[in-house]
């Protein structure tokens, strides 16, 4: 017997082991694949043998081949065999192989459950360890469910080596089997205070991972973590805890206040950069969450910024990178403190490291202001010229556009400058972002009316020089720009100086090499230009020019008619026929200009991308109703519904729809215009703006520059730098003028002291060069702002969102949820004394959280003078009401109670008691629960739509008293803010004009409440009842201080 073993092992030593395999592969560099395939054949033979040592060796080799990219899943069963070997050496090989190639789809995995359970309870700690390590890689929902209890037992193992592995693997188990979180949590919590630092670290690790996804469930652990933070010396654990606090503070501002001090101490004391960096990060998070309603923390911000500056200035690139990363977080809430380090950040743009340059770019985005935009963009343009590699250059390009276009072109004072920047950007060779530039051109030209003349001139030059952009058709991302250019020239052709020349440029044969969608725009806009030319020559009898134009089109269009692109072909042939017809008319000397122009009459307004979604469904339109009679399946089935649905409703909705004819539309348009005219918040187009622009405009356009040394410079383009100079001059001049005026005033009021206008100009002092009215995007009336970000439903962490506190042992029998909402409102009868009396229905949800049956619940409230619980007739003023149901364990139900309320201008808190009987098998006890009902003023408001004209009248009437509120440190997008107010406080948006929105709501007693919310997060409010208004504003403030 012994001889057999020795013989077996002697045979074995001539088998190929892992080292031999590796060596062999290295010696067969030329025919590696062939060599490996013979090896795999050998391995297959080896796997067929009974000797477990041979099998293990084979599996070990397979693990190596798997790393090289060979699929070894066919050996899964053999891997399981090796895993179940009694020898540690082989077991480890098996588990390693399994951890490398097993996954949820591996079917043999279900065979391993018992083996793993055996290994987990092995007396040898390394058997257990190896099994846990392997399992951490391939745990499936089934394995997690079956083994969760075994692993939980291991969390209290005597050996710390096992404990820490068991604690760590629990995270994977939770992910696969969320139900295990609740029972395991108390033990996990206990491990935070394990005597072994490794186990402690593992527990911190697991809770940090859990809390990162669902932080609110772990808030209760904050004191424990706080203790750990101040006592632990393990930097790894400290970093994890501090990161965790960063995730928790946004949910609990009080925590932040407590954290500031120990964190600042750590920042001062630690020598470890990683710890310092994480501390700074968390302090930033705390400051962000605190910024509302706290005295200033400028000292902490200064400390952070100062430490980050040290990081950025460090020669270590890693620290520099992280410094910039953290700086961008501060920038969001405290831009002022970062802006003073502009020099440093601009310096980083020159860094040789691309990651650092990109980070610096990110920072620049938030640092621009009206004052320094041109300067910063100029610097960036220099970098664009210098940049090597298209990726970085493209990044620069998008950043320039992002910076300029942010918050609705807020920082642009001179749109001529912006257009010329865009035109300069078109000279970039091989960029992928042509469409981005194009969309910016379109956006600006459409929305900034005053700039159209200039934009059209620039676009015409671009079209004229189209060959420069399309020179290299392979890398023609940039030719997208021509799409915009052609459209702008066509649409606003009345601004063209020489439409004929542009028309000619658009019909050059070379155009046929452009992508189809651009050609289509060319063709369509050629027709628009044609109309313009005709109108220009309108009235001249026998106009030669007009006829020449027709001839030009007739000559050139056939090229497009032959296009392979359907749209180009269709448009071209349509227009060609049209032109031919017009030519005939022209020859008969018929006036055609007007009719042709009518083809393209009317102005296109920008429409918000979400507008379509927000069109409210008109009353009475049932989208689910059948338009035609539904296809009848069988007669008998059809009979009943036919009478109810098919006959009446569809007709109704259809007829409403068709009524909207041309006249009706025109009338509505007129009404809306009037509405806008009377609306104080609507920015109207003022004719004077045009004039302001026109005067300097002509002088600005410089003389043609032809620079042959740089082939891609489009001649005739004004350089953006010149605008920079002009802008500076203009500002100087304005400043001087202002000073002059000031002096005058001084002279006039010599007696009074006035502050001299010295020092840097403030943001408000810079007046835009043109008075541009930025046309806002059209939105349907009554559109409500909505929250569109949906969470990923497949996120495995969603299942782990379990409120762990609800499971604390001293769990109440009954969970009582406070006032939910006040549902019904106004009472229809008024008493003769004209004291309004209102009824309010409060719905209360009772949830039985105990294991016993609850019955005989009685609800009682201590009435106040103002609010009284409505009791049945004949009942005393202090009698309680019986809840009309009983609650089995785990069930919840809703009951409604009616209150009568006199005054709604003050919030109210009513104390109450609920008594009930807990009935279990053995006994039944009488218990009671105290609660408070909170009637907020908000709950008396009803969302009521209001039209802007009515709203304006209301404001003008002067009956309303005003008040205002500032919310500090809100950094959510504006539409989220509006949505929150709408949702929590029952307002509706009357109108929204880019940076402010007017909102309306009405109380159940008919008080009007009007809000004007601005993006600077200030709220101006008016209401005919000042105390109601004050309370509503307080409640709004509270809502936002919670977030």
């Amino acid at each position, binding site marked *: 017997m012994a001889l057999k073993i*020795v013989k077996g*092992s*002697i045979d074995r*030593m*001539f088998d190929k*082991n*892992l*080292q*031999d395999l*590796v*060596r062999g592969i290295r010696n067969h560099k030329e025919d590696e694949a062939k060599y490996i395939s013979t090896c795999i054949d050998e391995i297959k033979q080896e796997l067929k043998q009974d000797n477990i040592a041979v099998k293990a060796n084979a599996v*070990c080799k397979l*693990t*190596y081949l798997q790393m*090289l*990219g060979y699929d070894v899943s066919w050996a899964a069963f053999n891997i399981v065999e090796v895993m179940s070997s009694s*020898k*540690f*050496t082989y077991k*480890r*090989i098996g588990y*390693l192989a399994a951890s*490398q190639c097993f*996954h949820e789809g591996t079917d043999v995995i279900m065979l391993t459950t018992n083996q793993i359970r055996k290994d987990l309870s092995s007396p*040898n700690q*390394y058997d257990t360890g190896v099994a846990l*390590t392997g399992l*951490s*890689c391939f745990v499936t929902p089934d394995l997690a469910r079956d083994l969760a209890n075994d692993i939980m037992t291991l969390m209290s193992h005597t050996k710390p*080596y096992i404990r*820490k*592995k068991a604690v*760590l693997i629990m*995270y994977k188990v939770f992910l696969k089997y969320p139900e295990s979180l609740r029972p395991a949590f108390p033990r996990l919590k206990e491990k935070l205070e394990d005597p072994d630092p*490794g186990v402690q*670290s593992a527990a911190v*690790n*697991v809770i940090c*991972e859990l809390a*990162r996804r669902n932080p609110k469930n772990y808030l209760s652990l904050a004191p424990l973590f706080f203790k750990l933070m101040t006592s632990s010396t393990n*930097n*790894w654990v400290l*970093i*994890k805890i501090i990161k965790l606090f960063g995730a928790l503070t946004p949910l609990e501002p009080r925590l932040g206040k407590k954290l500031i001090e120990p964190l600042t101490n750590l920042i001062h004391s630690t020598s*470890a*950069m*990683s*710890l310092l*960096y*994480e501390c700074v990060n968390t302090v930033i998070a705390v400051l962000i969450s605190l910024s509302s309603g706290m005295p200033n923390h400028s000292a902490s911000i200064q400390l952070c910024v100062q430490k980050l500056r040290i990081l950025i200035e460090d020669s*270590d*690139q*890693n*620290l520099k*990178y*992280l410094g910039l990363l953290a700086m961008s977080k501060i920038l969001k809430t405290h831009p002022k403190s970062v802006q003073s380090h502009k020099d440093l950040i601009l310096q980083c743009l020159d860094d*040789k*490291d*691309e990651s*650092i340059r990109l980070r610096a770019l990110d920072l620049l985005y938030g640092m621009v202001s009206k004052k320094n935009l041109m300067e910063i963009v100029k610097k960036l343009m220099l970098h664009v010229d210098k940049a090597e590699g298209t990726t970085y250059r493209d990044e620069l390009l998008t950043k320039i556009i992002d910076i300029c276009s942010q918050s609705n072109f807020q920082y642009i004072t001179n749109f001529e400058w912006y257009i010329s920047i865009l035109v300069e950007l078109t000279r970039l060779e091989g960029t992928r972002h042509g469409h981005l530039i194009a969309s910016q051109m379109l956006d600006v030209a459409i929305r900034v009316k005053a700039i159209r003349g200039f934009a059209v001139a620039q676009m015409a030059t671009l079209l004229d020089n189209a060959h420069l952009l399309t020179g290299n058709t392979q890398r023609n991302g940039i030719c997208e720009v021509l799409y915009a250019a052609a459209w702008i020239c066509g649409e606003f052709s009345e601004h063209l100086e020489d439409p004929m020349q542009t028309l000619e440029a658009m019909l050059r044969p070379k155009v046929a090499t452009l992508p189809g969608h651009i050609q289509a725009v060319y063709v369509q806009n050629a027709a628009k230009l044609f109309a313009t030319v005709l109108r220009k020559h309108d009235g001249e009898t026998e106009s030669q020019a007009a006829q020449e134009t027709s001839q030009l089109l007739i000559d050139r269009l056939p090229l497009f008619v032959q296009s392979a692109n359907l749209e180009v072909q269709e448009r071209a042939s349509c227009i060609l026929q049209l032109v031919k017809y017009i030519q005939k008319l022209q020859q008969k000397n018929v006036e055609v200009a007007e009719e042709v122009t009518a083809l393209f009459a009317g102005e296109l307004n920008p429409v918000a991308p979400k507008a379509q979604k927000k069109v409210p469904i008109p009353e009475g339109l049932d989208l689910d109703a059948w338009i035609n009679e539904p296809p009848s399946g069988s007669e008998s089935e059809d009979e009943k519904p036919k009478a109810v649905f098919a006959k009446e409703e569809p007709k109704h909705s259809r007829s409403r729809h068709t009524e909207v004819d041309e006249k009706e539309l025109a009338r509505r348009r007129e009404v809306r215009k009037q509405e806008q005219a009377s609306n104080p918040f609507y920015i109207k187009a003022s004719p004077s703006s045009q004039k302001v622009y026109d005067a300097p405009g002509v002088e600005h356009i410089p003389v043609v520059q032809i620079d042959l040394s740089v082939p891609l410079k489009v001649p005739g383009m004004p350089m953006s730098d010149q605008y920079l100079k002009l802008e500076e001059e203009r500002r100087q001049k304005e400043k001087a003028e202002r000073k002059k005026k000031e002096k005058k005033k001084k002279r006039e009021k010599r007696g009074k002291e006035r502050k001299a206008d010295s020092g840097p100009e403030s943001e408000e002092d810079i007046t835009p060069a043109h008075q541009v009215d930025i046309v806002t995007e059209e939105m349907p009336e009554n559109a409500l702002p909505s929250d569109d970000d949906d969470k990923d439903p497949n996120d495995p962490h969603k299942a782990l969102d379990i409120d762990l506190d609800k499971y604390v042992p001293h769990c109440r029998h009954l969970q009582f949820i406070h006032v939910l909402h006040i549902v019904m409102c106004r009472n229809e009868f008024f008493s003769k004394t004209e004291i309004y009396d209102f009824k309010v229905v409060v719905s209360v949800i009772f949830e039985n959280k105990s294991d016993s049956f609850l019955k005989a619940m009685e609800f009682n409230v201590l009435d106040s003078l103002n609010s009284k619980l409505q009791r049945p007739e004949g009942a005393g003023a202090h009698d309680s009401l019986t809840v009309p149901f009983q609650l089995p364990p785990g069930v919840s139900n809703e009951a409604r109670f009616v209150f009568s309320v006199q005054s709604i201008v003050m919030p109210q808190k009513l104390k109450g008691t609920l008594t009930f009987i807990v009935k279990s098998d053995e006994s039944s006890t009488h218990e009671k629960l105290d609660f408070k009902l909170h009637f907020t003023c908000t709950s008396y408001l009803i969302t009521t739509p209001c039209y802007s004209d009515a709203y304006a009248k209301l404001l003008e009437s002067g009956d309303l008293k005003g008040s205002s509120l500032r919310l500090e440190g809100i950094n959510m997008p504006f539409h989220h803010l509006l949505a929150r107010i709408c949702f929590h406080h029952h307002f509706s948006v009357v109108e929204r004009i880019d940076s402010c929105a007017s909102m309306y709501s009405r109380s159940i007693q008919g008080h009007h409440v009007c809000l004007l919310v601005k993006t600077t997060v200030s709220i101006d409010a008016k209401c005919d009842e000042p105390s109601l208004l004050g309370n509503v504003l307080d409640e709004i403030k509270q809502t936002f201080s919670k977030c």
Partner: protein
Amino acid sequence: MIKAILIFNNHGKPRMSKFYEHYTEDTEQQIIRETFHLVSKRDENICNFLEGGLLIGGSDNKLIYRHYATLYFVFCVDSSESELGILDLIQVFVETLDKCFENVCELDLIFHVDKVHNILAEMVMGGMVLETNMSEIITQVEAQGKMEKSEAGIAGAPARAVSAVKNMNLPEMPKNINIGDISIKVPNLPSFK
């Protein structure tokens, strides 16, 4: 969470790969190739972080790497990990390898990838950091090594002898590709070692 740990040489040859999420073999190879591509074109003295989230998971991910002589050690992690902490962890990993292999070089990794896996398993488990204390890691690895030897016993001796002979015949077994050069500046965590 650590999403993957990759070791490859200056030519992109994988020396060890550990993925903590499942991918097919082809995807794994592609990830290794692309990571190598990203990492190898970076200069020596620029930062060790790469926002290459396209490969594994989403934009939340970062590549954190260190380059030692002929080898790249790349960790792909998400935002719950501290960047500088992971850099230290790589350092601990390499130092541990150095201790366990006695002056580790690329060839050690080539021929003993299983051993590298076993060492790593004592440091990182299922994508989470298990142990950062080097002496603790080495103690556990050595204890397991001892167990392995005792199990092999007499039967293992001839196999070891043969393997030693095989290695002796190997002319191209240089020990000079030293990756033990760990005097690279580590700016942090003195208590880590």
